[in-house]
């Protein structure tokens, strides 16, 4: 029986040596780019492979939540091997920027492609794809008159009482939506709107965007607020039969078409402050804005492209063109803390 | 009353051995009977049969002219009104001495004064609010006795309750017990090894041998 413990010891010496390998992982070599990402789409792996194939630059991925990445960067300080930060939602990018982890992008090519309202302050980050946060409705529960020319602001109206579902306020997408409202309407008006919206909830916020769309398909609610790409995913069948049939039961309405346009948010990236492979970092961002990558993004994550020579995926394009809000996405970050507190004050859970 | 307690033809097996065989016993009301015998003879089992914690293989038990056990009937222990005090400390540790004694009684004033009386008789009034872990061996047994006696049992069974207490203590307790039992006309059966005890307390003495009781 004495052998047991010693065998165990031997078995673990192997992993311990692996452990040591773990930590010396971040050796900086030539022709590499180290990407810190908090996107969790499997399709991104193919994107990285494409980049390597095209440029010969090796891609190393560190993926984790935004807050975890921030702690890591804080700990790494000037020694950080990170080159690129890649994530969804302008709010996340702005928060990152606030901590001082990014540096301005210099590539003219990038700046030519990405319009000003889709870039961060000092060009410290840029959008590489777009998504809109729109209204999904069940035509059996909502009349044409009700949905025609609908605005986000209308969701606070009495007529929508008990008919609206939306996910939790802890989600960045909602925070950015509220931020954009603050940017356009001011805090007071937005707070009143939010308070009334909350009293219109059909149920306590729970689940993710997909869950809200399903609820509308199941007639638990009349309308949901969710991101456009979910329709793509659900209609493509990638989410399974139940989601496919649910997607067929709902329609999309683009809010605010008669005024500023529907709320648009982004996926984006920036160059990290102490990037050892600065040039490769910018090359990677340029790649993300190339036709190839844009097509890949459009076809896999069903987002809207930045490049206007690329068309959105047919499943998404079928919803038609719509007017996009040109509020600077950098504002989302600016008003984010205010938005969060506002949502807490109105008890949007 | 004659034959207040009557055991007829009691048999009991333990571990496939017949330890009680055709046992008979008659006890008059108010009598104090001592039972002696070697260890393992079956004395404890006999007491447990009488109060109903175990059942004999065959036989009949009558108490106060009622059948409490035979082939067709077995009155449950809680209804037999038979008290049992054993050697081990079985006071309820979470209750005071007084609450222990009151455990079987319903809450009314006549019962309360009865309790006070018993406490006084057994010299344990000052212990009323103490907890079992604060009591000495002798004090515990007195409380245990009080607890059984306060129920006005028809029959009181004692299974070597004073074994392990020192002699001086015992000689103090005996007269108290005798008086309280006589005063309340409680019929008693006591298992013991101590011949002094037999002499001090009992009217008759039986020896349990080969499954039967023999008067000595």
């Amino acid at each position, binding site marked *: 029986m004495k052998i047991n413990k010693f065998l165990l010891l031997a078995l673990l010496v192997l992993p311990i040596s692996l452990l040591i390998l773990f930590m010396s992982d971040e050796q900086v070599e030539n022709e590499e780019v180290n990407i810190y990402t908090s996107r969790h789409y499997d399709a991104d792996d193919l994107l990285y492979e494409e980049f390597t194939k095209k440029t010969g630059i090796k891609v190393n991925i560190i993926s984790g939540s935004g807050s975890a990445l921030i702690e890591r960067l804080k700990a790494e300080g000037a020694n950080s091997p990170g080159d690129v930060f890649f994530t969804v939602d302008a709010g996340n990018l702005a928060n990152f920027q606030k901590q001082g982890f990014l540096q301005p992008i210099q590539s003219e090519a990038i700046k030519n492609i990405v319009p000003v309202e889709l870039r961060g302050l000092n060009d410290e980050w840029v959008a590489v794809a777009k998504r809109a946060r729109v209204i999904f409705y069940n035509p059996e529960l909502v009349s044409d008159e009700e949905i025609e020319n609908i605005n986000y602001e209308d969701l606070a109206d009495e007529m929508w009482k008990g008919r609206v579902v939306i996910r939790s306020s802890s989600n960045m997408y909602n925070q950015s939506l509220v931020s954009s409202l603050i940017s356009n309407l001011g805090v007071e008006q937005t707070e009143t709107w939010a308070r009334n919206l909350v009293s219109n909830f059909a149920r306590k916020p729970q689940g993710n965007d997909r869950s809200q769309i399903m609820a509308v398909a199941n007639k638990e609610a009349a309308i949901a607020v969710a991101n456009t790409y979910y329709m793509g995913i659900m209609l493509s069948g990638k989410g399974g039969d*139940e989601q496919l049939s649910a997607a067929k039961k709902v329609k999309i309405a683009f809010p605010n078409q008669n005024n500023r346009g529907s709320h648009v948010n982004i996926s984006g990236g920036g160059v990290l402050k102490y990037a050892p492979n600065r040039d490769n970092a910018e090359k990677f961002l340029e790649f993300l804005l190339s036709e190839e990558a844009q097509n890949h993004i459009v076809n896999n994550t069903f987002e809207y492209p930045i490049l206007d020579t690329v068309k959105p995926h047919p499943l998404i394009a079928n919803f038609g063109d719509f007017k996009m809000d040109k509020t600077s996405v950098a504002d989302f970050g600016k008003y984010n803390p205010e938005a969060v507190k506002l949502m807490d004050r109105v008890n949007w859970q | 009353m004659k034959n207040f307690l009557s055991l007829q033809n009691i048999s009991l097996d333990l571990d496939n051995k017949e330890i009680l065989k055709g046992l008979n016993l008659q006890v008059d009301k108010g009598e104090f009977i001592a039972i002696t015998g070697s260890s393992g003879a079956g004395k404890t089992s006999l007491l447990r049969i009488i109060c109903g914690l175990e059942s004999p293989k065959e036989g009949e038990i009558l108490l106060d002219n009622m059948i409490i056990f035979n082939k067709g009937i077995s009155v449950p222990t809680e209804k037999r009104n038979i008290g049992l005090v054993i050697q081990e400390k079985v006071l309820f540790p*979470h209750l005071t001495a007084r609450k222990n004694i009151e455990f079987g009684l319903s809450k009314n004033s006549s019962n309360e004064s009865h309790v006070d009386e018993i406490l006084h008789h057994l010299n344990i009034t000052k212990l009323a609010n103490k907890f079992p872990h604060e009591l000495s061996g002798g004090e515990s047994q007195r409380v245990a006795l009080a607890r059984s006696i306060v129920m006005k049992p028809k029959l009181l069974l004692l299974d070597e309750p004073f074994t392990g207490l020192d002699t001086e203590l015992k000689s103090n307790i005996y007269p108290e017990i005798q008086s309280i039992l006589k005063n309340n006309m409680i019929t008693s059966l006591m298992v013991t090894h101590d011949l002094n005890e037999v002499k001090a307390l009992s009217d008759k003495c039986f020896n349990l041998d080969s499954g039967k009781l023999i008067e000595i």
Partner: protein
Amino acid sequence: MFKFKDLNIWHVLILIICSIFFIPLIFIGGSILFGINENFYHLYENLLLDYALNSLYLVLGVSCLVTILGVSTALLVTYFDFFGKKFFQWALILPLAVPPYLLAYVFTEFFDFSGTANVFARNIFDLQNDVAIFPNIRTITGAVIVFGFTLYPYVYMISRVALMNIPASVIEASILLGRNKIFTFFNLSIPLIRPAIIAGLALVAMETLSDFGAVEHFAIPTFTTGIFRTWTGLYDLTTALQLSTMLLLVVFIFLAIERNSRNKIRYANSNYENNAYKPIQLKTYKSSIAFIICLLPVFIGFILPVLELINWATQIDNIFSNKVFTAASNTLFVASLAAFLTCLLALFINFSVRSLKIPQVFNDLLSLGYAVPGLILAVGITQMFTSIDFWIANSNFFITGSIIGLILAYIIKSYAISNNVLNSSYAGIPKSVDESAQTLGANKSRLLQEVHIPLLNTGLLTAFLLVLAELIKELPATLILRPFNFDTLSVSVYLLASEERMFQAAFPGLVIIGFGLIPIYFLNKLILNKNN
């Protein structure tokens, strides 16, 4: 007595170990020194009361439910014989293998609009496809139910052992005094085991307050979700730590209650020999009632979720996918490493207490780690490591984001388990063995290696397995401290459930439950041994 001149390398070593255990807590408490910022005010004005009230409601509700479930089943199984009793004796503990977050995920999907429960009900009652019979489970009452059915085994076990420790003679004494069995069980047995019940409830309260996965999924704002949200959403680690301090204080109150009650248990039984009351056979009618009462918790807490998970898993094509395999091997790697180190540590400390005159108090202090909620431990360790890394910023060796933090958290959390096992194992080795070895010339080192370890082998193995099972279930600390690109089974389940992809989460969930069955085997041996 301990004198300063006796201080040697061992004492220093132990002091260092104790410090490492406590430093995360110091970082947590130390957050107060940074003062309250505007985020905290915001929380104070808007959310703190909700957190407190919800937590209170949860603890009270769960306590009631687990008392009813745990004590009633313990009474039935101890005092009666009925159909299925032999099965339920050990089966009632099964829900312990299902971590609360997993049951929460299963129930959510199960009671969902198009989940099994509603589909079943529609089929039975022939209803339209848009009717839902079952109410929304994602409420605070739903959470009470989830915690109640996964945590009642603590109260059940502790009550059962306590009941078995009541000698038959005490029960008989009550019956001889004219009280019937029902009166006796309620007015004697239950008060006698009250310290045990309270200890069990304190443990349940701590587990409830520590949970993150279930309350987050049910969208119930509590301290744990608040802490998580403040850090990941507001990027404010300091305020998160301050919230953690508040939760920790509450947890420590329950810890004190538990310790206090445990001492009372030992005290209450010290006067008795062991000789349990013989169970009473129940007749058919009552026997079936007993059967149903015992079946309910086992069914809801274990059988139902497992069946549903199997149902979902079979609907996925590739359950042994790369991701699952990677997650499983990651889990096993980190959990085994931590379990091994924990056992080593427990061995060392117990040896030191026994043979090197180290005061027992160190052991007791280290054992308190289990009470600290995993989430809080993780946040404290993160802060600790970020600070350390910052001070040694010039090296390429970073502990933040490495596996060291996770392993440290695991060791702190699971030390108590391995200590308990090794403590009892060591207690089984008489001092005379040590003395004989010493007279034969063995020094301390040889004593440990050639005498103790061989004798402790079973204990070490048991401790290892118990810690392993415990760590595999762990979620909050793992979620936060895991290195990048390192998912475990519990984390996979969490991520998939958050994306409402329960079908994919089913198989990893079953693996977690499978490992969770290991301690149940041992716990049953423990209880059945007491029965003899």
